[in-house]
């Protein structure tokens, strides 16, 4: 029937199909749909930048306007991936620039971004509107200056948790007076100072500015002036909250805050005075749907609790564990609409007096809409997890990190298999799961049996034998990313079902029991996979013998073949 419609009609229908997955499905229906879909596709998501070459992507989607790229494997966040492993964005920008694609939006995660790439980006795409960099590195404030100076229609510059070298040039001052289009500016991760005058003038001439996140160098008085100029702000990240409570600046700020009725999202507090009071913020708390105090080290638990009591509409809360179990109880009582909760450790190994299973149980009882959790705690019990599973069957993401990674049930000393088993059995929509604590192969049996929608699984210090890994590979049909560290999984588990890896984005295994020979064998059987081994030994004469245990292995499916930018210690088999 659809074949009788002219292309324009089908294109129009496809306009309503936005999600990447749905679009991918459309393109597989027939050649005609493939053709139409590829010409109309504007947004593309590439989960692994080495899975395809930029040239091939551009050939297929010439109308590309928005590109999302991810580079390094997830465990790079925890320093498990050596420094110059890869993930360079420059070849992508170069290829896009050459092809004259009308790029408007670029979102990068865990990639290496050089100043040269930013400069090339800023000069190559006249209608470039949005740059989002998450957990990237390799650039300095000089690169940001190029973006500011050259992207005439810039709407969004969002820098999240990047390692940026500060060159003390005044990058913020490089936004020309003619730039009035900013909607979102986030430079909270920058370490250096910015010109406050330039910042204030920029805010003053950006009437559409909805989201502004300042870094720690922006003092309170500047914050007050900025808020005066931008009462329309919906999302604010406070830089320095350091103040003398009796100062004129602080009194002014308290009054200014009262005027900011549009604020629904608050974050930052990157610098706070000792014994900081957050009373100035209470008036806007009832409007907040999102609160991120996970970088506000120095705010006492008691102060956090007082604040949270006012946040009745909260949907997303990122906080530090100094709020304590008691504080989470207050969250449970107050934040009935809570959907996402992240509790971070306030000290490198956690605060011993911080959160335990009790806090999590309280949350599960008070917040039935909870669907995303990241929880760093000191201990957990099976009973608690079973209760949580019963109270919150809607989990999509469940990431539990017990700081002592091998700790069993704190009450019974049993492994936590039953607890996590209850989670996967109850939460049928679970897409992402991170395990910790003492776990045997049994938990993997449960996961393989029940976690039908699971796409990403992170395992550390768990399991007893290859059976564990096999339960997962056999059972989780929708598995896309599997990352394993320090588990007794070996060659049998790796090689039993090699075809599985072509249905997945990637597999990471470090400090497990797989050997070089097995990896070689896998690589030989599966030419569509890149099987990378990291050989970090300094010794020159270290050749890879088959029987040798592999310290780190990262494999991923790819259409691009072996990559040419791998450093010396990466052996692609």
């Amino acid at each position, binding site marked *: 029937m659809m074949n009788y419609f002219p292309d324009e009609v089908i294109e129009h229908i496809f306009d309503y199909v936005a999600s990447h997955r749905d679009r991918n499905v459309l393109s597989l229906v027939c050649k005609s749909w493939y053709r139409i879909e590829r010409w109309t596709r504007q947004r593309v998501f590439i989960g692994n930048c080495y899975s395809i070459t930029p040239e091939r992507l551009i050939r297929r989607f010439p109308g590309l306007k928005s590109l999302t790229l991810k580079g390094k494997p997830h465990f790079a966040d925890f320093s498990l991936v050596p420094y110059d492993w890869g993930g360079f964005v420059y070849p992508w920008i170069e290829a896009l620039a050459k092809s004259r694609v009308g790029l408007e939006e670029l979102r990068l995660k865990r990639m290496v971004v050089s100043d040269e790439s930013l400069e090339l980006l800023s000069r190559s795409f006249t209608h470039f509107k949005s740059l989002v960099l998450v957990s990237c590195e390799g650039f300095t404030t000089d690169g940001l200056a190029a973006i500011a100076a050259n992207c005439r229609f810039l709407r969004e510059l969002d820098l999240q948790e990047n390692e940026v070298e500060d060159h003390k040039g005044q990058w913020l001052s490089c936004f020309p007076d003619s730039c009035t289009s900013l909607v979102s500016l986030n430079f909270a991760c920058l370490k250096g100072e910015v010109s406050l005058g330039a910042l204030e003038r920029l805010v003053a001439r950006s009437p559409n500015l909805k989201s502004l996140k300042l870094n720690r160098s922006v003092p309170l008085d500047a914050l007050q002036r900025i808020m005066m100029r931008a009462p329309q702000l919906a999302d604010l990240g406070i830089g320095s909250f350091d103040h003398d409570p009796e100062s004129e600046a602080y009194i002014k700020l308290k009054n200014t805050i009262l005027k900011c009725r549009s604020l629904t999202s608050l974050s930052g507090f*990157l610098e706070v005075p000792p014994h900081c009071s957050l009373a100035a913020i209470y008036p806007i708390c009832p409007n907040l749907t999102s609160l991120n105090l996970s970088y506000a080290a*120095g705010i006492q638990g008691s102060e956090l609790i007082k604040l949270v009591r006012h946040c009745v509409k909260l949907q997303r809360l990122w906080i530090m564990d100094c709020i304590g179990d008691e504080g989470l109880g207050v969250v449970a009582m107050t934040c009935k609409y809570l959907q996402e909760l992240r509790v971070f450790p306030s000290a*490198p190994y956690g605060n011993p007096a911080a959160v335990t299973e009790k806090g999590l149980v309280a949350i599960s009882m008070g917040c039935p809409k909870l669907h995303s959790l990241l929880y760093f705690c000191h201990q957990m019990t099976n009973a608690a997890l079973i209760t949580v599973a019963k109270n919150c069957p809607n989990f999509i993401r469940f990431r539990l990190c017990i*700081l002592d990674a091998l700790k069993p049930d704190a009450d019974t000393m049993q492994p936590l298999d039953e607890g996590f088993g209850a989670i996967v059995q109850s939460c049928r929509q679970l897409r992402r799961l991170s395990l910790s604590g003492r776990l045997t192969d049994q938990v993997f049996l449960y996961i393989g049996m029940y976690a039908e929608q699971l796409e990403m699984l992170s395992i550390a210090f768990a399991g007893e034998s290859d059976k564990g890994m096999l339960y997962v590979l056999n059972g989780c049909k929708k598995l896309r990313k599997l990352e394993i560290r320090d588990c007794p999984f070996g060659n049998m588990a790796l090689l039993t079902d090699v075809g599985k890896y072509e249905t997945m984005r990637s597999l990471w295994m470090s400090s497990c029991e797989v050997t070089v020979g097995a990896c070689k064998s896998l690589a030989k059987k599966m030419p569509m996979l890149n099987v990378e081994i990291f050989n*970090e*030994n300094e010794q020159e004469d270290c050749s890879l013998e088959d029987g040798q245990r592999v310290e780190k292995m990262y494999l991923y499916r790819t259409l691009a073949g072996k990559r040419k930018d791998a450093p010396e210690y990466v052996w692609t088999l």
Partner: protein
Amino acid sequence: MEVGLKKKENMGFEETELRLGLPGNAVSAATEEVVRKRGFSETDTDDETAAVDLMLNLSSKEPTTGADPTDKHNNLRKEKTLLPADPAKPPAKAQVVGWPPVRSFRKNMLAVQKSVGEESEKNRSPNPSFVKVSMDGAPYLRKVDLKMYKSYRELSDSLGNMFSSFTIGNCESQGMKDFMNESKLMDLLNSSDYVPTYEDKDGDWMLVGDVPWEMFVESCKRLRIMKGKEAIGLGLAPRAMAKSKNRS
């Protein structure tokens, strides 16, 4: 405590905070040594020492005992708490890279915030020397604690930032940054750029920069950032001209 912090400065502060006492298992000897030292000073606070020990049953007795005698001396008390007092705990093994799984960026931020917090706590307590700072044309005054700075340069940078919103913005505010440069002083005084002056204990208005920093901190009662032309009017120019004649 003092020594520990100074150590961080010497080693390139930011880099030391990267590891937070989680040395890699395949590091070269040099970095391993540095990391050990770091690991020790990371476990500065009492809360953390106990927690380090608990972690994973894999936490080490800090192998730093041999690494640095000064550290050991200052942290002897803490060192003792690191040794597993609880016989139920299995013997210690090496510390683990990448655990707990907290993004390096977050770890670094926390570490920086902690040490800035510690330093500012230290800076606040001994006799702060707050003076008022006025700038001609600015709607209100500021206060700075002169003891927070170690040099004219630092003071200049800080004042420049404080008052930059009141100047016509360029990429660099040349006036403030050049005031220490004698040869440019005449340009400054003749132009409409700003000149920092201060009132000393005797009630006289002086040009900032003549005396050694410590003497300045002792004698300064308030600061005034004047427009260059006014500074000439106050008779500062002859003094400046005489000085530059003597120097050349």
